[in-house]
């Protein structure tokens, strides 16, 4: 019981309004985005901030859904399927995702994230257009489109961390900030 109370208190202290661990499906994505939209409407959140939070949630959940599908076809992983957290602080919303991944996927993913973070707005636009074109020309393309778009729509760097699990696997954490000022980026 104490554990539950501590857990509750941790959520409150960090402003977490939604914490989920498990498989992410399309239905769950719809439910979570609907909850977040309703909360933001109740709190009279600025419409541009609402849109940005909605968009980041959709893209993050989509990445986790794809990941869920992938790991279902593999042997069960003891580190869970994925975690999804939405938190709100005074100045910003935070959307945090986590999922296990095999170590050989770290380098390309880190390269992509570093590349996105190093680019300015115009560079991100060019990269988005390039990946979009490649994606339209082949079924396999389009990897990372969601991440590029998140960076563009939030104007924030993509904060990430790879936590080693064992020799073969790590846990990938991604934290996205959506500021609550309503300026366009």
């Amino acid at each position, binding site marked *: 019981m104490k554990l539950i109370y501590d857990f509750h208190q941790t959520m409150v202290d960090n402003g977490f309004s939604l914490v989920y661990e498990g498989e992410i499906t399309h239905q769950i994505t719809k439910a979570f985005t609907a909850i977040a939209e309703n909360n933001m409407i109740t709190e009279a959140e600025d419409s541009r901030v609402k849109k940005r939070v909605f*968009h980041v949630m*959709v893209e993050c959940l989509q990445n986790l859904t794809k990941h869920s599908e992938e790991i279902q076809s593999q042997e069960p992983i003891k580190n869970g399927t994925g975690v999804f957290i939405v938190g709100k602080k005074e100045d910003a919303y935070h959307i945090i995702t986590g999922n296990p991944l095999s170590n050989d996927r770290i380098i390309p993913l880190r390269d992509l994230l570093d590349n996105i973070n190093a680019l300015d707005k115009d560079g991100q636009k060019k990269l988005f257009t390039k990946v979009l*074109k490649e994606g339209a020309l082949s079924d396999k393309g389009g990897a990372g489109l969601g991440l590029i778009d998140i960076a563009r729509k939030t104007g924030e760097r993509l904060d990430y961390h790879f936590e080693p699990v064992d020799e073969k696997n790590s846990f990938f954490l991604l934290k996205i900030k959506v500021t609550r000022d309503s300026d366009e980026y």
Partner: protein
Amino acid sequence: MDAIRIKGTDDTPAVTLDVQNGVFEFSGRSLPEDVTTFYAPILDWIDEYAKNPGNKTNVVFKLEYFNTESSKLLLDVLMKFEGISNTGHEVLISWCYMEDDANMLEAGEEYSEIVDIPFENVSY
């Protein structure tokens, strides 16, 4: 040819492709569970239409929201219409965006840079 009339839902757009009435329109929200399956019959329909297109085709996009997965398929749709335009038939894309939705306007501008068809931006 038979028209396509798909009603919109909270995650799929309303789509009308109707040669008789000259209506070619995509509206609403696009974040389907399976984008490829959703857009496949639409792309097939445009392929069929491309065999004998009208002299003037005005395609209206009036989307409130689309995810990045849909953005690839929307580009596929636009590229099919670009093909029709390349065969000497007039095609005009009307890209509609809500007045305060800079992102939607920008998305249209980006598409217009990728595909070679006349675009007009329409705010509402």
